[in-house]
């Protein structure tokens, strides 16, 4: 039983890491541009399938490096051509646009690669269990946790220590002032969108290695990411990270005792947070308006 519990906690942590990667990207875009990006799951799927297509040419490691970058480039183009026109209008419109994009991206991957699940080979070195007692500790799972930690660390470094990151954070607080100070806000939003989509693409490659490839891979991860943002606190990136891990572990633990409530438990958590602390665990008061 303890082993089963440990297994599910660890599993929940990994799933939570996916939620967190997705949710961090969503949060970045939401905070700076006020856009709820419904197409985030679609971009995740694109990242996964691009990695699948590139793997025969550049190998697993190459695909892990290149596929998220290509996904980010696609994100930059989409922002430039479609989303930029909607800034400053009712958030309803960008929401509907990305909703339509989500349809197109999911159907597009299905059209190109088929509806059936595809195997996503990962290097032999990463698949063997490290210990016979704790069979679930495969190299790939540990690698994923480590990689997510590194990437999230790098993202916080960029946001806190580089000029671009500081501008993004400043823009989140007061975009008008940042613009008046001579920063190219259109470019800033574009790059920020690309950064968010990069995280989605990376989550896609990692998720494909664990869950296999299906066109619906992204849409199944997007709802928990919204929950993660709300639980963690709107406007707070550390909160989003915490929210993702928290609901991941909570679902994992619930799977042991009450499997049919695996998903429902996150919504119960969200309801409790909204009741007791509407701004979210690490959110600041006043961001709910």
């Amino acid at each position: 039983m303890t082993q089963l519990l440990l297994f599910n906690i660890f599993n929940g942590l990994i799933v939570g890491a996916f939620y967190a990667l997705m949710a961090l990207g969503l949060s970045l875009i939401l905070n700076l541009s006020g856009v709820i990006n419904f197409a985030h799951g679609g971009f995740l799927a694109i990242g996964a399938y691009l990695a699948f297509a590139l793997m025969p040419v550049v190998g697993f490691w190459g695909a892990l490096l290149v596929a998220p970058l290509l996904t980010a480039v696609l994100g930059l183009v989409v922002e430039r051509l479609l989303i930029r026109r909607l800034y400053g209008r009712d958030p309803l419109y960008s929401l509907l646009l990305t909703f339509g994009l989500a349809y197109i991206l999911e159907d597009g991957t299905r059209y190109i690669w088929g509806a059936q699940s595809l195997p996503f080979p990962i290097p032999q070195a990463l698949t063997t269990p490290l210990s016979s007692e704790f069979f679930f500790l495969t190299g790939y799972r540990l690698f994923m946790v480590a990689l997510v930690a590194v990437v999230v660390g790098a993202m916080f470094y960029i946001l806190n220590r580089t000029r671009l990151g500081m501008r993004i954070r400043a823009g989140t607080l007061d975009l008008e002032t940042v613009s008046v100070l001579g920063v190219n806000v259109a470019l800033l939003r574009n790059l920020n969108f690309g950064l968010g989509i990069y995280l989605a693409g990376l989550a896609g490659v990692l998720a494909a290695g664990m869950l296999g490839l299906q066109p619906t891979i992204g849409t199944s991860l997007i709802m928990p990411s919204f929950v993660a943002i709300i639980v963690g606190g709107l406007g707070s990136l550390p909160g989003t990270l915490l929210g993702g891990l928290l609901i991941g572990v909570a679902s994992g633990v619930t799977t042991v005792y009450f499997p049919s409530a695996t998903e429902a438990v996150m919504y119960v958590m969200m309801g409790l947070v909204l009741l007791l602390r509407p701004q979210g665990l690490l959110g600041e008061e006043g961001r709910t308006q």
Partner: protein
Amino acid sequence: MSAPGKRAATAAIWLVLLTMPYWMNAVGGYTELASRVIVMGLAAMALNYLLGFTGVLSFGHAAYFGLGAYGAAMTIKYLVPSTALAVVVGVVVGTVAAAAIGALIRKLRGTYFAMVTIAFGQVFYFIAFRWNSVTGGDDGMTGWQRQPLDLGFTTVDILHQDKAFYFLCLALFALAVGAMALLLRSPLGRAQLAIRENERRARFLGIPVEFHIWLSFVISGAFAALAGTMYALLSNFTDPRSLHWTLSGNFVIMSVMGGMRSFWGPLVGAAIFVVLQDYVSSHTENWMSIIGLFFVLVVSFFPRGVLGMLRRKTTS
């Protein structure tokens, strides 16, 4: 539009709705498609009570729609084989859920409100999906059907007569739409309009803003649940897709496409959407891309919707 023009347009809409089953076949449709237009039209108008007339964006209305559908299906399957009772139970279930969730979120605004409704919209989907023994899980609820309608002096066979069921839907639709129109004209509806126009000013006038947003959410959820019960009765079936967030998005695009500032706009949007979806999905496997493209085009080129554009043309 001028008052007589408005009255003529309303009369034309009712004329179309009353005669729809009789010419639907001639233009390549079928009676069930007409019923679906009514059902989706009511759902979109219900959403628009909140979206267009209180100015609050909910992106999770499929929850109340789907709860209505499951409430109706479960009533007939497990409780009493009565169509009338199924409708009542479905509406009550959806309304109670809207009241509970509305109470949690009434203080939130803008994108945050939208996001919380998106997330909450999905909780009932997972429950229906997982609770196999009662809801049938992913396969949906089968093994039940709508029952003949007992009116006391006569019994109407709505099960086998498509047109009879269509007119039942239309009667419920008329009741709901009439109620919505009355509400919007009452001081209550005026207060909600005031919140849409300027929340701060409405608050200074002493309007209890949170209460009105909650109430509007509940009213809107109740009518969406009514549409949901009709949806389940229409196909004698319901499945978790009636609770899925993609359906919530479809309701929003119907409202926007028809024109969310006009009373009848969402019905027009729903008619266009339902017919388009029916046509596209029977002609290509890639209907999702086409619907998605349609979203992008509507947002980019027709943000005011069909009726919104017509109105601007006649006033300018």
